[in-house]
């Protein structure tokens, strides 16, 4: 059981480039999340999704886009990368069916540098 899988693990971008961070989960969880974690800091929510076709903004959505076409996948798109987007990005999922607790399971992260 793989859980939450993120690719790539590392990436270096030039300013102005774009890329997609991939996230997939095999636990059939309905909720998925994207966070960023700056060095020595906590996690900040970028976007989340409560199910296929439904997404919503979190605390820091500017400069990012998401889509949720399937239950399993929740890609994060960076358009016109900026140095301020240098961070570690974590994807998470949780099973919120029937009022279940919001225990989120995290992937290993994608370390992104924008130079």
């Amino acid at each position, binding site marked *: 059981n793989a859980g939450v899988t993120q690719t790539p693990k590392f990436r270096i971008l030039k300013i102005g480039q774009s890329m997609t961070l991939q996230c997939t989960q095999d636990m059939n969880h309905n909720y998925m999340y994207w966070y960023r974690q700056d060095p020595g800091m906590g996690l900040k929510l970028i976007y989340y999704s409560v199910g296929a076709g439904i997404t919503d903004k979190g605390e820091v959505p500017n400069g990012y886009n998401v889509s949720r076409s399937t239950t399993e996948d929740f890609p994060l798109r960076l358009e016109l990368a900026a140095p301020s987007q240098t961070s570690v990005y974590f994807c998470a999922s949780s099973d919120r069916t029937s009022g279940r607790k919001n*225990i989120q399971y995290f992937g290993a992260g994608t370390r992104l540098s924008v130079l």
Partner: protein
Amino acid sequence: GESVGLHLPTLSVQEGDNSIINCAYSNSASDYFIWYKQESGKGPQFIIDIRSNMDKRQGQRVTVLLNKTVKHLSLQIAATQPGDSAVYFCAENTNAGNMLTFGGGTRLMVKP
């Protein structure tokens, strides 16, 4: 806005001692709390959770205490081991929210 915070950014303990990591929260509507452990280079890992209708919950070597009167949450680790060295985050879930709000984290360092 309301948020979750931590008292101590770094905690250094001797191997075998007990550790206590603290967290203050300000949202009285929060109904559920989680502690996560994050080892270097890895994603956060669930440790233990507690609902707001409980004061204490125990797991294997870990105990979470909730004091709703002063809006305080703590994680106690018994007989701390080198493998416990990590950053620990508390997170709160609001009654109507779909999100967890994370605190800034406390780094636990275990000295041999």
